[in-house]
């Protein structure tokens, strides 16, 4: 197998801070005096540091990492949008990068003109686009509007048309940055399908995503970046697991939070999650058990505490509430410092990010909080084998968040 991409100690330095008169003088002083900035000068930020890897032709590689880990910078360098500060990258074959869907669409032009323009921007010749034009329009499902200016399109239509163009590129190396996060559910399905098709046709794909299910299904290898450095390189499943474990040590101190309500007789100091083995984690798989540890401290002894935890979507829509009042387990005479632990036997959540609102009350129905912290902790839920059939349910936009076990059958119409 020959290599498609070879990256050698790639590094990228960004200078932070405002550009203005001072930075101008500073730059020129250094230039004239031949002063080289030290690597760790204040305001210097290494988005990538010493990244090296080889990718063989036909591999589908996921690049995983938290926000700011350097994923986008890596893709930008590989797609020649910006240059590295050090190191090199070599690529074999035509490269197409999809860092955003619909880049370069011009509002005043018709869909038809935009297909040609967008195709050319992505590196296709007019002849290539013309040859695939019908396919592109068919895939986008907007044939009726193809001669309408794009400014009259709905955002969904734009995305569909743009993805259709991109999907019909035939590069040897495809670089994709989370474009699947757009469009409606049915369309996302088809995007994933198209991606699968591309990967099966033996092309090399580099794919940045937070969508664990898509990574699991589409990719064969995973690279984890952490603060600009290569953190892990292995199979996609191992990479996802490694990424999840990365969250383990980032338990957040809530003492500094000021956006809380309550009398303050007790304070929630930290909320952490532990997996079945008792290890701290911030990511779990659907269906797995999980323990929520609500650490607290109080100034003086309290006769009893009622704790509430509400799991919400990232935008704060409440999904599930659990309380020791529901389970009729009074937490009497709690120590001054300790943790209230809630064990959830199966987590019925579809993959995604969830937030936890935590509240402590003297009595359940007396909702005068002692301490209430919204968004006290964030939990990553990764697609898991919830239904036991080996299929990983993943969330498309518009789907619900809560999984319920169930069975399906077909019934003939009764006579």
């Amino acid at each position, binding site marked *: 197998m020959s290599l498609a991409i070879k990256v050698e100690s790639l590094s990228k330095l960004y200078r932070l801070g405002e*550009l203005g008169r001072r930075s101008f003088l500073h730059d020129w002083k250094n230039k004239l005096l031949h002063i080289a900035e030290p690597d760790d000068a204040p305001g210097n930020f290494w988005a990538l540091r010493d990244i090296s890897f080889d990718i063989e032709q036909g591999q589908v590689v996921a690049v995983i990492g938290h926000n700011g880990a350097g994923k986008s910078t890596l893709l*930008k360098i590989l797609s020649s949008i*910006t*240059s590295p500060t050090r190191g090199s990258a070599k690529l074999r074959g035509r490269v197409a*990068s999809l860092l*955003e869907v619909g880049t370069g669409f*011009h509002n005043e032009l018709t869909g038809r003109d935009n297909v*040609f323009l967008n195709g050319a*921007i992505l590196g296709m010749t007019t002849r290539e686009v013309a040859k695939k034009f019908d396919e592109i329009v068919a895939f986008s499902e907007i044939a009726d509007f193809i001669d309408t200016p794009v400014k009259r399109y709905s955002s969904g239509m734009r995305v569909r048309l743009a993805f259709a163009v991109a999907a019909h590129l035939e590069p040897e190396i495809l670089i994709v940055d989370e474009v699947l996060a757009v469009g409606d559910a049915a369309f996302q399905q088809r995007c994933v399908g198209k991606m699968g098709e591309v990967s099966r046709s033996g092309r090399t794909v580099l794919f940045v995503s937070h969508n664990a299910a898509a990574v699991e299904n589409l990719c064969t290898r995973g690279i984890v970046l952490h603060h600009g450095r290569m953190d892990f390189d292995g199979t996609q499943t191992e990479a996802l697991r490694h990424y999840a474990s990365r969250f383990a040590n980032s338990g957040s101190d809530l003492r500094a939070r000021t956006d809380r309500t309550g009398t303050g007789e007790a304070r929630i100091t930290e909320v952490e999650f532990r997996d079945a083995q008792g290890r701290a984690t911030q990511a779990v798989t659907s269906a797995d058990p999980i323990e929520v540890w609500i650490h607290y401290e109080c100034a003086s002894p309290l006769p009893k505490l009622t704790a509430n935890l509400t799991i919400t979507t990232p935008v704060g829509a409440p999904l599930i509430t659990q309380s020791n009042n529901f389970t009729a387990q009074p937490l009497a005479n709690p120590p001054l410092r300790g943790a209230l632990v809630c064990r959830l036997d199966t987590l019925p959540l579809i993959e995604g990010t969830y937030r936890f609102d935590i509240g402590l009350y003297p009595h359940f129905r007396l909702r005068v909080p002692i301490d209430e912290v919204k968004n006290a902790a964030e939990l990553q839920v990764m697609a898991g084998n919830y239904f036991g059939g080996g299929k990983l349910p993943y969330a498309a936009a518009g789907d619900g968040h809560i999984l319920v076990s169930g069975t399906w059958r077909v019934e003939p119409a009764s006579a």
Partner: protein
Amino acid sequence: MNTDWTKTILPRRRLLDIPWRELWQYRDLVWLMAKRNLTAQYKQTVLGPAWFIIQPLLTTVVFSFLFGRVAGMGTDHIPHFLFYMSGLVVFGFFGECVNKTAITFTRNAQLFGKVYFPRLAAPLSQMLTNLAGFGVQFAVFLIGLAFYWAKMHWFPDPQHLVHLAPNWRIAIFPFLLVLAALLGLGVGFIIAGLTTRYRDLQMAVGFGVQLWMYASSVVFPLSKIKDSAYVALLKLNPMVPIIESFRFAFLGEGVVTKGDLAISAATCVVVFFVGLMMFCKTEQTVMDTV
């Protein structure tokens, strides 16, 4: 290990490493962007492409009135209209190239940040768009020329002696256009290269181009300047021999020698390549600062 990499990404390209081959691969993009610029510019306007003509035409009228009538500045034996129009269309093409090239990075920041294509495609396509605009304006100029030429032959006015002598030198007209384009792109490249981190120069571009016009024998014939030191100084401006040659070819009046034009041509080429190098150097990291 096989070494036939299609693309090698390094921190810095060599100074003269201009991606010609890539540009050729993207020639369709240059063409489509040029077309897009044209159509987008006049979409939802009533007069549409007529705007190409209105601006130089009105300026010609104003100049004819101000400099010709009010100030009484002579234009040799050439009708005011043809004199000013000739200077304005040629300089207008150059000026547009400077203005539009200078803002390449800021205007396309969104696009450049998300997708790669040879960045030169943007200013080149813009140059083609400007060329189309120039074509329309040039056609109007030719109509004017035909009108005055016919008038000179069939209805001569003894009060106003008109002398028009279009000659074989019209053959070098494409060459003059190429020079104006090279110079316009070159100056634009330099400004684009200098202004990505600090935008100061960009503030001055529009104004600077306007000042440049007044130093380019657009509003006065070089023959009216008696002090030879001034003439020599003005001829250092590469646009002066270009405009004078254009007038000499189409109208038969103009102060220019082969040597002047050669120096101007050399300047244009040098400016273009210096600009090109600066542009290609900036292009590599520009997305970090825009």
